[in-house]
């Protein structure tokens, strides 16, 4: 299995390189492109784990939809790279402070890391034999059978978020001419066009 481990190191190295480039690129569009590259490598790592369904969903959802919207927004920003660099020293102390706090938190979390005694058993238990059940099916069983209510509730949370976004951005303007397809289809030629025999030299009054 030397190829698999070589592939693993390749993809994880590339993922780290991509992630570093996301934060070090000056141009935000390049950052987003590197982010997409990182997503791809993460998907490849999932494939190596044998979780092909999760890998494909990662590509479809994050690369195919979320990152497109990122790119969409970032492309329309008018960013001056020199202007961005001006604020660097001003914001450095605050940024450094937040970084240090996060580092301490991480140290605390990892310092007190213990495995629950039944965790190993739990980890093995719900995993069906991958030879018999494909991982699409296994995930489906967990989501739609064991945790169906939680799944529905998370869907409702997303619905609320969607309605919120629409309510925030919707503005009703008066005096806008809108195409009404039903009116157009319902229009009859007899109501709108009349054929008139015009006497020559006189015209219609």
């Amino acid at each position, binding site marked *: 299995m030397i190829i698999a481990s070589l592939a693993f190191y390749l993809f994880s190295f590339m993922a780290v390189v991509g992630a570093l480039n996301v934060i070090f690129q000056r141009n935000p569009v390049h950052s987003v*492109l590197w982010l997409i590259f990182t997503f791809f490598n993460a998907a490849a790592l999932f494939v190596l784990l044998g979780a*092909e369904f999760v890998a494909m969903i990662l*590509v*479809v959802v994050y*690369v195919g939809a979320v990152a497109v*919207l990122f*790119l*969409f927004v970032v492309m329309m920003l008018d960013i001056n790279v020199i202007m961005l660099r001006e604020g660097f020293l001003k914001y450095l102390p605050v940024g450094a402070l937040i970084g240090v706090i996060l580092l301490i938190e991480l140290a605390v979390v990892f310092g007190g890391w213990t495995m629950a005694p039944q965790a190993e058993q739990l980890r093995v238990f719900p995993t069906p034999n991958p030879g018999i059940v*494909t991982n699409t099916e296994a995930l489906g069983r967990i989501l739609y059978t064991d945790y169906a209510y939680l799944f529905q509730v998370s869907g409702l949370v997303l619905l609320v978020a969607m309605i919120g976004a629409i309510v925030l951005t919707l503005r009703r303007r008066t005096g806008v001419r809108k195409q009404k397809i039903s009116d157009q289809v319902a229009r009859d030629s007899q109501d709108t066009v009349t054929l008139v025999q015009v006497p020559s030299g006189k015209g219609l009054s």
Partner: protein
Amino acid sequence: MAEFWTDFAWPGIWIVLKILLFVIPVALTMAFLTLAERRIIGAMQLRIGPNVIGPFGLLQPFADAVKLLFKETVIPTGASPVVFFLAPMVTFSLSLLGWAVIPVSAGWYISNLNVGVLYLFAISSLGVYGIVMAGWASNSRYAFLGAMRSAAQMVSYEVSIGFVMISVLLTAGSLNLTKVVEAQEGMWFFIPHFPMFILFFISVLAETNRHPFDLPEAESELVAGFMTEYSSMSFALFFLGEYINMIAMSALVTTLFLGGWLAPFNFIPFTWVPGIVWFAMKIAFCLFVFIWVRATLPRYRYDQLMRLGWKVFLPLSLVWLILTAGFLVYTGKLAN
């Protein structure tokens, strides 16, 4: 050393050979598709079309390729050079990637992926990147407008494509493309799913940016949309990518709805014909419809395109999905 050959070298060579066996016919199909398109549209508009180079103009695609190769490559000032050249490469490679999972005949595929349909969906949803990158990197208003339109259009139509795919997959009971085709033995899915077949084909037209949804490159408004600044080989790669995408999408329609490599009737004179021939004939039919639509319909207006995607196709495909699931549960035919 013997282990090296049996474990790595021969499988590697075999994979490369298989890839070539797929890519070369696809590239040739693409070359003659451009010719077929011009000839068919010519015939539909009572013209002759290109008929000078070679018999029936058969060498025209190669003449075009040579012409494009010898043109000058121009990089616009203010363009972002790396992204500018990355964009056509991305478009071209993505159009070829989809072929990795398409079974062209019983057992003829590069990879028999368990999530084949999802893979194809993922690849087709990535197609937008080539266009968006090209539009942004060109540093041109026309290109940028084309890219913006394209991003919105492809994201919108993916949603209904996804729902149609789910209805088909529910009926087939698998995400594996080979199993989807095998499930169509007896009845091709375009018969029970006929409304979705039409809807899927229209969405595919939008997804490949073909007429009547070719707004990203609407030449009457945007010069050539995202391709405005491209010339020579970088333009050729976009062109290749677009046409190979058409073929790949036709292959997807064939696999999901038209029974893949299966013969239309399961008795003697039809079963003698090998599966690959049926597959090619079905693809040719889909491609003909692509061209036919181009010659027939005028371009959609942008707001109408969005309305069609979100207000017509999305509700329709959702309702059909629920109907399909309900019917399958009611009749107890749901695959488990």
